[in-house]
């Protein structure tokens, strides 16, 4: 069965510290993986996708097929990174994880 697991509901990190939001997936085949973000009182939006291998707002995510993981990382957290983050798997529809709330402490 296709599934996305985000083990942490809440992650609190001090400003300037590294961030890692964990994501594991279950999928038969080659997955298309994404991270979505929802800032307070804003709509859900795409942050990055693994096929682009890009860095957005300082965030990167590497697909590890051996560990079936797609963890989101940023070396130095900023206060504006506070938001809900959803890892997602997609063929046509999107399968979302339950989300992790990232709280950046001043």
């Amino acid at each position: 069965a296709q599934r996305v697991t985000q083990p942490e509901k809440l992650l609190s990190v001090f400003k300037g510290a590294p961030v890692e939001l964990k994501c594991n997936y279950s999928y038969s085949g080659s997955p298309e993986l994404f991270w979505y973000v929802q800032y307070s009182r804003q709509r859900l939006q795409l942050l990055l996708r693994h096929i682009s291998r890009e860095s957005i707002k300082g965030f990167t995510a590497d697909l590890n097929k051996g560990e079936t993981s797609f963890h989101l990382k940023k070396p130095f957290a900023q206060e504006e990174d506070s938001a809900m983050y959803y890892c997602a798997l997609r063929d046509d529809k999107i399968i979302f994880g339950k989300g992790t709330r990232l709280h950046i402490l001043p």
Partner: protein
Amino acid sequence: GAGVSQTPSNKVTEKGKYVELRCDPISGHTALYWYRQSLGQGPEFLIYFQGTGAADDSGLPNDRFFAVRPEGSVSTLKIQRTERGDSAVYLCASSLTPGAYNEQFFGPGTRLTVL
């Protein structure tokens, strides 16, 4: 240009009533998706349209839920005999075409509360 819009932004109804939720996709987007997000959960897929037809309705929880997109643009999600468990944020998204390579753009959602 304008993004995906959804109306109403909030809907409060009583158990057993019928509700309609509307989605206006981005102009020219042929694929339209409905998701439901319950408290503390990620969005869950309900149905998606390619043009006027429902290409995948496997996420609809039961036959009280129905969605249409008669002209291939605006879509309406219809819920009959609402139950308290239907309370959630209903999200709509659209993309230029289906497929994993095309970004889905999300609307602001409709918060449905069933009393």
